[in-house]
């Protein structure tokens, strides 16, 4: 038993976190407000992880709101027009968005960082324009948007609790999916491309399909997150394509730790709690300032994010100890 646990020590913490999160509604007493905060947190964990996955291939997007919003629009339209349950429409919408993601990715594979950032940002603006123009507003509702069916119909008893566990399962599933993907050969290839594209080519990796694959997967998961978010609010409008929605996953991933699986999760939890806390204090503008400053400080002083904080502290302590020993002996 003991060696078995020792071998799997690194899974202890995630397992512990999982159990706590699953039991959290019990501790919080099924409070509607807390559950809403938790649901949105889980949705953004999915979203930030999806954005973060794209950076594993060395591509940083500034326009993920395009996929987030398209996921919401497609799944809502499919659910309303065909009458199938929303949960199925979510995946159908995500598949279409993944296709669009690959198309956008095709224009991006040859571009350098800044250009890529600009093009992805541009696509978010273009898609927003397409949604609001008068020719399509019969379908999309124009600037007004339209009502979206709930993931779990409110006639179900304790619908918000069911919704919480439903989204919780999806968040765990997507994290597990990314974990397995990054451990596979595909993950290795993506890392090679990110570190040095020319060397990756030299060792027989064609970067194009891998980059497109990363774009498609990232768009797919982002679309799921978008659909879940709009169904939680029960409403969708073109504001979902705004720059804020594009920037949130970046802020979450970076404060948590870019290029790690735990980073987006920790970042989302910390920033959301901070956000809700400042909100409760009634600091409307100040909360943005606090988060902006936190982001800048993280990039300057903790480039690997909050994930690296325990390691940094341990290292400091060891250095201090070593110095003390040196002083005593020397």
């Amino acid at each position, binding site marked *: 038993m003991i060696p078995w646990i020792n071998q799997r020590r690194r899974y202890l913490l995630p397992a512990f976190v999982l159990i706590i999160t699953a039991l959290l509604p019990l501790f919080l007493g099924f409070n509607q407000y807390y559950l809403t905060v938790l649901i949105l947190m889980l949705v953004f964990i999915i979203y930030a992880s999806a954005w973060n996955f794209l*950076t594993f291939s060395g591509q*940083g997007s*500034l326009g993920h709101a395009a996929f987030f919003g398209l996921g919401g629009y497609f799944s809502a339209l499919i659910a309303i027009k065909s009458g199938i349950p929303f949960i199925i429409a979510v995946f159908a919408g995500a598949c279409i968005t993944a296709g669009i993601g690959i198309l956008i990715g095709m*224009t991006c594979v*040859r*571009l*350098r*960082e*800044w*250009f890529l*950032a*600009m*093009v992805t*940002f*541009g*696509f978010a*603006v*273009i898609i*927003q*324009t*397409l949604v*609001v*123009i*008068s020719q399509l507003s019969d379908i999309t509702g124009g600037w007004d948007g339209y009502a979206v069916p709930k993931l779990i119909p409110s006639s179900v008893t304790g619908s918000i609790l069911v919704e919480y566990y439903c989204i919780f399962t999806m968040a765990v599933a997507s994290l597990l999916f990314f974990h397995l993907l990054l451990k596979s050969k595909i993950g290795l290839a993506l890392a090679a491309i990110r570190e040095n594209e020319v060397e990756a080519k030299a060792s027989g990796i064609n970067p194009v399909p891998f980059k497109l694959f990363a774009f498609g997967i990232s768009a797919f998961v982002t679309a799921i997150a978008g659909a879940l978010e709009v169904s939680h609010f029960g409403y969708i409008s073109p504001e979902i394509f705004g*720059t804020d929605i594009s*920037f949130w996953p*970046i*802020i979450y991933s*970076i404060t948590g730790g870019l290029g790690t699986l735990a980073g987006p999760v920790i970042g989302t939890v910390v920033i959301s709690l901070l956000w809700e806390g400042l909100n409760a204090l009634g600091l409307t*503008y*100040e909360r*943005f*300032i606090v*988060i*902006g*400053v*936190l*982001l*800048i400080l993280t*990039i*300057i002083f903790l*480039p690997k994010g909050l994930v690296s904080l325990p390691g940094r502290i341990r290292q400091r302590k060891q250095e201090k100890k070593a110095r003390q020993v040196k002083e005593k002996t020397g």
Partner: protein
Amino acid sequence: MDINVEIIAQVIFWGLYTGCIYILLATGLNLIFGVMKIVNFAHGEFLMLGTYITFFLFVVSGFNPYILLCASIPVLIVIGVIVERLCFRPILGTGKLNEIFVSIGLIYVIQNLAARIWTDEWKTIQSPFRDITLDLGVINVPSDYLIIMSVTAILLIGLYVFLYHTWTGRAIRATSQDRSGAMLMGINVERMDMITFGIGAALAGAAGTLWAVSGQVFNPYMGSIPAIKAFAIIILGGLGSIPGAIAGGLAVGLVENGTAFTLGGAWKDAVSFILLIIVLIFRPTGLFGEECE
């Protein structure tokens, strides 16, 4: 639709005027990119600060807003230098994307500081010359637009003289051509970074004053889209090339107004990105960008 010379002339004229704002933004961004090889996505926030400083001083002092250029430019130089020292110098040369992420943080900080001070309502100021129009044969143009174009031209000429006929200007150009070479020649490249960033911010601040004077509305969140368009312009015109920025700025201003006129105002923002994406599909390094890597 009844298209005649008058309307076309009007659209072109608006295009030129919009182009002026973009030129000032894009030239500043380009200078900064040339010297520091970073992209400051928060550049539009300097534009916004420029409009608010003009607004504040105009309300307090009641001076002619064009004179307030003398105030908004120095203030923005100071702000630019502070931002460079605190935010961009520590991350210089760390990661490829870090400057984009720092810019995002800056966008949030500056926008909401402004919103905290001036609230987030739309504001506008009235130029003293707003009733004077000039007859240019086919069209009547507001004199403000002509003044704005002349001010832009004067600023650009001033920048040219500074870059080509002063020691500091030459040092800036040297740094942007070859950073380590400039260092070996005894140029303090970090000071050049600071000066360039200050000038870039000042040009954006001047654009902000002109924006406010022209009677356009502004609020704390108005800066991001013009800045990102300015970046699209410098990609089109070639990274680091100032003539390219001027040509690109005018082109985007014209195309934008032309599209707003023919397809409707909703397309105004999207069209410059469509242009950018089409160009980048065929030339991944920009229209005049050199083939590197």
